């Protein structure tokens, strides 16, 4: 089982992570990935950069738990979950979820499950620096709670 969970402060090479999730494993029939990118617009405001804070002792534990739950639900051959912390700028990748499986269905579902759960259960917080120089904390969105809850049925 090719399982990698990582939090990193430096630049994130999203495509390298996607390539690595199936590297050399000829049982893999499909890879599904989600790459979350930093946008330069949020709630109608121009955004210059963002700082991602986290709860270091808890973060990898929380991410590991989400990945383990995906492994219980679906037959998977590889998972890579990598999240940035610190300062990011548009259009830097913030998070990469890459899932490898023998068949596409499980890979699609597991990938969406992991990002939906991460959005509501992993201790990260975004603080935006607007183009006008002011700063604000990003508010959690109700639609993220609904997406995560949809997996509980």
């Amino acid at each position, binding site marked *: 089982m090719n399982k990698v969970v990582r939090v990193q402060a430096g630049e994130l090479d999203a495509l390298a992570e996607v390539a690595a999730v199936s590297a050399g494993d000829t049982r893999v029939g499909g890879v599904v990935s989600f790459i*979350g990118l930093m946008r330069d617009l949020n709630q109608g405001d121009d955004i210059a950069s963002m700082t*991602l*804070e*986290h*709860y270091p*002792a*808890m973060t990898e*534990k*929380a991410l590991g738990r989400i990945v383990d739950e995906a492994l219980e639900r679906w037959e998977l051959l590889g998972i890579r979950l990598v*999240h940035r912390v610190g300062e990011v700028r548009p259009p830097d990748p*913030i*998070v990469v979820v890459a899932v490898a499986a023998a068949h596409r269905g499980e890979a699609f579902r597991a990938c969406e499950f992991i*990002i939906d759960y*991460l*959005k*509501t*259960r*992993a*201790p*990260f*917080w*975004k*603080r935006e620096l607007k183009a006008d120089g002011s700063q604000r*904390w*990003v*508010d*959690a969105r109700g639609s993220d709670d609904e997406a995560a809850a949809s997996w509980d049925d």
Partner: protein
Amino acid sequence: MIRVLYFASLRERLGSDGEAVTDQPASVAGLREMLAARGGDWQQAFSGDQRVLAAVNQEMADDSTVLKDGDEVGFFPPVTGG
């Protein structure tokens, strides 16, 4: 003793990133009450209508989670990663 940590917007509002609490509360609810009793921003954060989540020893917890000596409690606003 309980080690208490505050994160993100909560840390800024309280002007503290953490502290050691020596009066041993029985549960997360008890700790919230103790902190709210300080008044002002503390009261608003811990007994107001804003959501403040809790983790005990780095696992998500709720108000009924029991606390014991040496535990670490993290308080934080709803998460916004991904």
